[in-house]
């Protein structure tokens, strides 16, 4: 049931760039259930790495464990330093941003307030320039800056969630299913934006169920199957691999 074979070269050799994030033997349990059993993963600086897999494979759990939303055992290294014992809020201040699956916006506050709060972790620094940058990236948000976040459409909420995370000037951005519940055209927009982030120097770890689309913009990818890494490899190679569809549709 698990396609255990590792593909081609090991990830470390895939890129000479230093690792922004390294995960070693990560285990996460919900009570008696082990949701992640020994994940190893590496995100080189400046790349987009995606984690794909069917429902319930543990993708969100992985991001939440890396971020410290969920307690886990194993090692998470951010820019070479262990994050053990570092609370979630401190991870944000160190430059890790998470856009969660449920977006977790401040729905009864305005778009502008949501973005303003995005700069909370670095509030002693000027943030107006960042706000202009976010508005430039998402003109829709500028139009709707006085609207309450809860009244935005799904795609706009996703943009706001990403924009809010960007206000914290993350070096590493963790994106949890940004395409979830969005129409195909909007999915395309969102993923183009993710590509744009890479160009402005943000390293991205992208979790997606939408395998084809996320592989198209990623440098490297891991396929998660019930809490373990099944396949991994350069995104282009994985996209052509027949075993990928088997991992989604059974076989």
């Amino acid at each position: 049931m698990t396609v255990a074979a590792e593909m081609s070269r090991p990830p470390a050799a895939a890129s000479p760039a230093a690792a922004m994030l390294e995960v070693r033997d990560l285990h996460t349990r919900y009570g008696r259930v082990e949701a992640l059993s020994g994940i190893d993963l590496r995100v080189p600086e400046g790349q987009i790495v995606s984690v794909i897999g069917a429902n319930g494979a543990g993708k969100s759990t992985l991001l939440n464990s890396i971020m410290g939303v969920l307690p886990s055992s194993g090692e998470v290294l951010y820019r070479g330093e262990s994050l053990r014992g570092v609370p979630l809020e401190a991870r944000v201040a160190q430059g890790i941003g998470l856009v969660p699956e449920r977006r977790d916006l401040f729905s009864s506050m305005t778009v502008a307030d949501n973005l303003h709060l995005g700069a909370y972790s670095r509030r002693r620094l000027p943030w107006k320039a960042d706000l202009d940058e976010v508005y430039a990236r998402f003109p829709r948000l500028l139009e709707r800056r006085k609207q309450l976040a809860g009244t935005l459409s799904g795609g706009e909420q996703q943009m706001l969630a990403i924009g809010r995370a960007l206000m914290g000037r993350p070096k590493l951005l963790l994106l949890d299913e940004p395409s979830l519940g969005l129409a195909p055209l909007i999915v395309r927009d969102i993923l183009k934006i993710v590509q744009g982030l890479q160009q402005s120097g943000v390293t991205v770890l992208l979790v997606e169920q939408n395998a084809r689309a996320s592989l198209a913009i990623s440098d490297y990818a891991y396929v998660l199957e019930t809490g373990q890494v099944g396949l991994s490899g350069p995104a282009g190679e994985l996209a052509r691999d027949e075993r990928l569809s088997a991992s989604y549709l059974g076989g």
Partner: protein
Amino acid sequence: MTVNPRTLLSGVAVLALLLLPALLPTYQVTLLVYVLIYSVVALGLILLTGVVGLTSFGQAAFMGLGAYTSAVLSTQAHWNPWLTLLAGLVVTGVVALILGLVTLRMQGHYLPLATIAWGSSLYYTFGNSPALGNFTGITNIPALNFFGVILSTPRSFAYLALAALLLSAVGAQFLLSSRTGRAMRALRGGPLVAEAFGVGIFRLRVQVFVLSALLASVGGWLYAFNQRFVNPSPFGVHAGIEYLFMAVVGGSQHVWGALLGAGLITQLRDVLRDLLPRLLGQQGNLETIVFGILVILTLQFAPRGLWPLLERVLPPATLPRLPASAPFADRLKPTPGVPLLQVEHAEKRFGGLRAVADVSFELRAGEILGLIGPNGAGKSTMFNLITGVNAATSGRVTFSGHDITRAGPGAVHRLGLARTFQHVKVLPELSLLANAMMGGYSRAHAGMLASMLHLERREESALQHEALRHLERVGLGSQALSLAGNLALGQQRLLEVARALVADPTLLLLDEPAAGLRYGEKVELAALLRRLREDGVTVLIVEHDMDLVMNLVDRLVVMSSGEKLAEGTPEEIRRHPAVREAYLGVDMQEGAA
């Protein structure tokens, strides 16, 4: 027959309690009487707050109703004091019924706030009514006469209070180990399980609320004839709060937590009344400081109270196996191949969101049908439409020939549908057997009174027999008496299947039964489901694990974005292009729209 050590220990404890009033010095006996009276009141809170999960700060007010009714009738109308007990129960019962009907629809924290409100109102009503002697109260209440014995000394009264406590405690214990008791416990974990097995939640809540008020009323009657006078102060909200403290500290989910909590707080008060004024140089109700701190520490360090700590050193409880009796008649099963469940153009909107849009499919008796789809496809909503948790906005759902589009979960269950839950919902502190017996709730009929008197043993025995049979069927027969909380997740899921089977369903709905299971457990689950199909059970399964689904089901319905995408055999579905796209996503370059 061997004697269970726990029964032996209970016997010794009761004997000790019986000897206490005779052996203790008078002052201690006086204290004991209060402990016993408070225990009766706290016992009501154990049932209401600990077991069912409804927090009340107003028990003291119900106690006041009992006490004042007895006081007025025995002093002004010269009723026989024993008759005033009945009158007090009637008055309290009526008031509680009205308050319950009005407030028990409240959710979460609204209910406890409401109890503070009406508790205060009743207290000020006692204090401001000239007929009740205002804040001075009513004096000269006669002593109780028990067949010529005047109960005017603490020693004699202690036996009355003891009898009251033992009777109430045994009744409560009987109640908890019955069909109604299991339903009460199920309420605490949220309404879903109870509703799914046909429990009338509001009715049961009201019943328990009234029962706890009646226990408080008995406490009030005892209080009045022990003190021989009443005034409002022991019946205010602060007293009500203290009863809740007793339950919390003693252990709010255990019948004997009431006695432990009442004893601890009463003894502590007695010590502190002397100690604190000397220590702090101030007179007054200083013991509330210690009580409050005690409660906060209990909540922080032993949220289930002190009784469970004691329980650890006691011999484990065992469930007596009841003698075999006539089994339940099985439901008539439909002929294989006959349509059992029909969904026609079902649609569900939440505000502007269409969670399910125009979905139709049919389930035939004897088959296993899989319902699959990516995240957010609307499977859970579809599941809720079938089980009666939500009603469809438009369209029709028919089950066994009945239109169930608007039927609630209980009604759908009684028509022969039983389910399991995606997030396992078993009662961890109960045995596997008791959990499984919960599934047969709607096959039995005994009410609260019959349960308290254990008049339903015949029916209970049939239930027990059924539960054991199905536990064996899923492979858990040998562990029937261990606690459900000690099982691994996979076994808990099997327990949920057994619980559903005890209901003798014509249709079994499984909500992601493989989620979180290990490989071996999944194999076991698949084998069980195949066996069930051979026995003619019809199954609808919502599941993510494709390996499991594809190798198990006869047919599949695939949903995506609220719509039905495809329907067919596993092989057809695996090759279906739209299904592949829904699962693997659209290609960016091709840009499907």
